[in-house]
């Protein structure tokens, strides 16, 4: 399909992207095993300069260093995770705490599962689910390396997840999506609008299941790394029209979500969600909604 149609779409949404935007290397201090100061000291001794990312609790940009950040003693010892900056934001919004019971519905390879465990200080419980067995091997390695001890992981289809009568305090739905061109150079040649529409239907099924598994008063964070409104604002609009939910304001970098997309006006509530545009945030494209079940 090519870049043109997508770049034009983004232009109608107010962003002139080149299609060549890229991210900076980012890491997350694994507070289960290290403090920020300890990691800064150890990596700076290897010539790696860490610069805190102001809108993240544990995130840093990492520059320099003769050995790869993905192959250092500190990496093997689990003192940090390599995690793109925008991808660290959803857990900051969910803000899970010690003792809560959290469901991570589309969990592999476990970047956000491990981050949630760090926020929870390995207390309480995380139920992590993914449908793809081969992607769960990476999750298992990450949980082991990063010292996560409060998680039980399943290979299951989350669209039909039945967890007995158990309901969760908080749910992360980091939905399967079309992704974006910033982290995938081949993206424009692989994607068309048909994929986007198909993904949006799966996402709605996942959203419906998530709400059924959430405690009254509980919080659901819905997130994608797609810039396409069908997977973002239009799904949130669908949620507002079909379920009894409220949205909470998401502050942070980027812009409020769009209130008018593809010629359609949306509820002003939708603007409480957050959109990460690569030209604005220097990250990949991202969308985050915080949904509360009354």
């Amino acid at each position: 399909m090519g870049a043109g149609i997508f770049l034009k779409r983004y232009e109608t949404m107010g962003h002139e992207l080149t299609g060549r935007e890229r991210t900076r290397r980012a890491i997350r201090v694994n507070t289960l095993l290290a403090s920020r100061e300890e990691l800064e000291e150890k990596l700076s001794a290897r010539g790696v300069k860490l610069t805190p990312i102001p809108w993240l609790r544990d995130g840093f940009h990492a520059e320099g260093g003769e050995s790869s950040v993905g192959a250092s003693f500190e990496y093997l010892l689990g003192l940090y995770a390599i995690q793109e900056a925008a991808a660290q934001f959803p857990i900051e919004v969910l803000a899970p705490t010690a003792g809560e019971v959290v469901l991570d519905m589309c969990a592999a390879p476990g970047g956000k599962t491990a981050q949630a465990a760090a926020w929870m200080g390995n207390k309480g419980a995380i139920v992590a689910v993914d449908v793809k067995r081969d992607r769960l091997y990476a999750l298992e390695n990450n949980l082991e390396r990063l010292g996560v001890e409060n998680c039980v992981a399943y290979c299951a289809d989350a669209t039909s997840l039945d967890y007995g009568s158990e309901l969760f305090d908080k749910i992360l739905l980091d939905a399967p999506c079309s992704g974006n061109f910033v982290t995938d150079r081949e993206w424009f040649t692989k994607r068309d609008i048909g994929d986007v529409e198909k993904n949006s239907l799966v996402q709605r099924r996942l959203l419906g299941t998530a709400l059924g598994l959430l405690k009254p008063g509980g919080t659901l964070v819905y997130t994608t790394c797609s810039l396409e409104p069908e997977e973002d604002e239009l799904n949130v609009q669908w949620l507002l029209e079909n379920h009894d939910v409220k949205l909470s304001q998401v502050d942070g970098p980027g812009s409020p979500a769009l209130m008018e997309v593809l010629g359609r006006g949306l509820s002003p509530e939708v603007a409480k969600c957050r959109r990460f545009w690569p030209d604005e945030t220097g990250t990949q494209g991202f969308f985050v909604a915080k949904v509360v079940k009354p």
Partner: protein
Amino acid sequence: MRELKDFLASIGAVYEPGGMRMNLNDRRFAVGADVAAHIRDRGRMVYAGKLLGRTRGEFIPSAGLLRELGRMQGPNKVWVDERVGWLFACGRDVFGESITKSEGELEEGACFLVMMGDDCLGYGRVETRGGKMLLKNLFDLGDFLRRERGLEE
């Protein structure tokens, strides 16, 4: 968990993991009460609580177990410098002359944790090759990188 007991005995460690013990295929877990209370479907479970290790003929300790044992007084330990530590993490054996300090009798067949400062990088067994003592690499943390490469292929 006989294999775990044998492993602990081989490095001279006394250790009793807390929580409920669970086996998933060749992996051994210790599951705390908070997590155990939320297990519903053991059939499709792939991971739970704290991984202790894997049994592949020999018991292969997890990174978490090595971390805990490395902090304890009692287990056999050898220390190496950073250069030798990196070679070890790349799968190489440790030659006797590269050991800067040890705790425990370096006798044939005994197993030792390989330490770099306060960090445990893996473990190995004392052997003699060409009349020289070495610590044969049985497991090192570089395994994470090898596993990641395996998943990418």
